[in-house]
């Protein structure tokens, strides 16, 4: 077996014993203290993109067993050449910190608290609200008698965080509803 330096450190880190350790001239205990195994070793590399500014640095996400292990800049991407700024460098903990919302939440009128709900209930409720507003407020004709088919009492704000495909879905849906108050971050 080829006991490369990298392999050697990895084995120490993993607690495995290489045969005849003394042949390397190392004091095992000392070396072991810093010979952490490479945390991305064997992880799958997935190509993604930093979600902040529109430089859109490409990023490699290291994934093991469906879990994010680390992120770093994609050295092949000609724009960022592997580099990232503070925000891009913080992607890993952005996904692993405790602040994320993970369930649909509902706040009832005059309530002082959030309640967890499931998606089915939540979307059914929203669908009902949208339809009620649309049925009541839809403007078929303006004051001049021109057909306008618009809905002014519902709005959509955002989202430059959406992918192009999500934007296409949203624009089509909102115009289908007749929404005209449609705006996003290009304006702030």
């Amino acid at each position, binding site marked *: 077996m080829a006991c490369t330096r990298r392999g050697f450190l990895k084995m120490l880190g993993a607690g495995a014993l290489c045969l005849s350790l003394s042949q390397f001239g190392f004091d095992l205990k000392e070396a072991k203290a810093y010979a952490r195994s490479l945390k991305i070793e064997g992880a799958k590399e997935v190509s993604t993109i*930093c979600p902040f500014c529109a430089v*859109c640095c490409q990023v490699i996400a290291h994934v093991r067993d469906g879990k994010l292990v680390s992120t770093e800049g994609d050295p092949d991407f000609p724009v960022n050449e592997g580099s990232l700024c503070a925000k891009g460098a913080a992607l890993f903990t952005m996904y692993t910190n405790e602040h994320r919302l993970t369930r649909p939440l509902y706040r009832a009128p005059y309530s002082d608290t959030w309640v967890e709900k499931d998606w089915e209930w939540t979307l059914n409720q929203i669908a009902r609200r949208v339809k009620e507003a649309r049925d009541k407020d839809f403007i078929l004709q303006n004051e001049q008698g021109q057909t306008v088919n618009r809905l002014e009492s519902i709005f959509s704000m955002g989202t430059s965080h959406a992918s192009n495909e999500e934007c296409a879905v949203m624009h089509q849906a909102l115009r289908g509803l007749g929404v005209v108050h449609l705006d996003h971050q290009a304006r702030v």
Partner: protein
Amino acid sequence: MTNHWIDIKNSDAILIMGSNAAEHHPVSFKWIMRAKDAGAALMHVDPKFSRTSARCDFHVPIRSGTDIAFLGGMINYIINSESWFKDYVINYTNASFVLAESYGFEDGLFSGYDAATRTYDRSKWAFEWDSQGAPVRDFSLQNPRCVFNVMAKHYSRYTLENVSAITGVSPENLMKVYEIFCATGKPNKAGTILYAIGWTQHTVGVQNIRASALIQLLLGNIGVAGGGINALRGEPNVQGSTDHALLYHALPGYHNLPLAQWQTLGDYQKANTPVTHIANSANWWSNRPKYVTSLLKGWFGDAATPENDFCYGLLPKGEKGADYSYMYAMDRMLEGKMRGGFIFGVNPMNSFPNTNKMRAALDHLDWLVVGELHNSETSDNWRRPQSDPAKQKTEVFLLPSAHRVEKEGTISNSGRWLQWFDKAIEPAGQARNFADMYVPLINKIRELYRTEGGTFPEPLLKLNWTEKYDAGEWARRINGFFCKDTEVNGKVYKRGQLVPSFVNLKEDGSTSSLNWLYTGSWTEEEGNKAKRRDTTQTPMQAKIGLYPNWSWCWPVNRRILYNRASVDMNGKPWNPEKAVIEWKEGKWVGDVPDGPWPPMADKEKGRLPFIMHTDGSAQLFGPGRLDGPFPEHYEPAETPVAKHPFSKQLTSPCYKFHTSKFDAFAQPADPKFPIVLTTYSMTEHWCGGGETRNVPNLLEAEPQLYVEMSHELAKEKGISNGDGVLIESARGAVEAIAMVTIRLRPFTVMGKTVHLIGMPFAYGWTTPNCGDSTNRLTVTAYDPNTTIPETKACCVNIRKIDTLTEIA
């Protein structure tokens, strides 16, 4: 961006103005530094000495809101010093067009102004037309009414003395920038202007950009490598979401929102399809009907037929002149005219101006749907400080959204590159991407209409929709399909196959595309081009850092827009060392040219370079803007001065504003609010901070709200570094920690000392003890063209306080 990130390295002079590139687009500095390595001059013109300034050759402090004066002075310098690029200006711009007598300008107002409506009759800003309907042109530029001479006269008032008096920039500093940047008016030199929201967020925002366009056209810097006007776009997919028009005034692909006055598709197409009488103008928008019909086919599928106007009648129609933007939506909300709505991936209760108004407005909603990663000042507005939830009626649905590494699809970077990202991990908990919220929601609404009926269900029921969202499928829908078997260049495409290029889109309903700009991004022949990772280049492309095989770029993989302006009449590059395209042996090489036609020397087939303009020429005179054909200096809506040297018109005669009880304004030179406030972000936080305040490693680096101020102001106010202070405007008050620095200095403006302070807007109350929205101070005055608020300049006062309640 007209160009792209890597192209910045080709510049000889880089003017960063209205941008803090090193902090807000840090990786752009990779390419800015490469230009510097090659000898480029780097200049930063900005109120504050920032991390950008630190790496530039020099920094020029400027009072916020006076960019047009600064740039107008540069235009005047270019003309007086004859630095302009004559072949370029005469042949490629409308410098030679002769203006009609109806155009005029006097004491700050252009002709056609109506004070009652604060609007102009823009028909006054016309050219003289010949008998064929083409503009009269004088290529000798002798006619005193030709655009060049009228422009020269307009900016002759922008003397060093006048500009210095109002901007607070010393004449020496003005000359330093003017001389260095204008040296790029030579054929073999290129200068680039990098800007961001420091230019757009003003009541004259659009005209700030227009002024830079005038400069870049006069210097021949548009279309060339290392040139351009480069908007460093902020949000991750603000480019793509603008292309796909999550904006009230447009449909995907830069088509106007249908208006009530255009009742039929024919009306719409006629009104929105320009006609040129200049023989060698490509007038690309003459193709618009093909794109609009294909969009309708994409939206309504087989239900869209020639007989029913391709379902055009089902689309909502706006009223002419009506404004449905953010700011107007919020104002209508405050008036109780809104029932509910969707706020996805934006945090208006922190990032909109005059936040006290915005927070009060949101209380009037019956229901609100928020799609977010974290609780935000918006989702939790009902429990904000000093608010009693028991009195808040709004029902809120907070939907956990998936984030970038948890989904797949494409985004478009600032350089218009279409980049695909793969899904790395499953969304956190039950989080979903936005489309997986909208698709089932619309299906539920459709089902309700099917079973219960209701008002005008047709547009919903006829939508070419889906049961389950798939990013790939929608990327292909965006590209577009043939709706019937079609032969293109001898090859037969079956119904349902992908359209190879937007030149194949048709007006007859035989093609679909959700955005013509993206047609060609996913083809039968080459598949999903957004996934391409090939760095192959020709030696010519390598010289300027062009990577035509990495991802794909709209339009038609053209990496530098207006590149036909980078060559002379014969198709030879102005700068052979950094050629973008070149006409060689009867064909173009290099980048994808702006259209296939031969160079202009070919009198029959050649075309003018600015193909998106009806008359083919770039617009030094730009009659399309609502507030004037030439940029003119006006003070911000809130200004520390009562007059300026250019006219009696103190502020923009057209800027928009609201008049609710929350929309208070300081008087000009108001002694109660003598200090200019500008707002900004920083590397470590993101816009309103909703995402980054929830990343502990970023919050650690920039934990709390600060206000940067000069030592002079601090001394005047008895403030020491690190003290708690209160900043007050006519609209609100904000607590912050004083950061006293030499990086800000007092300005001398119109003979008096004017202090300027700066604050980030990334902090909000949902993150404990970090401070709350800076935008409680900012002003609800807007650019008349875009309704972008003037968050970069307002007037405030500041004082030391002993007890802080928002920061601990």
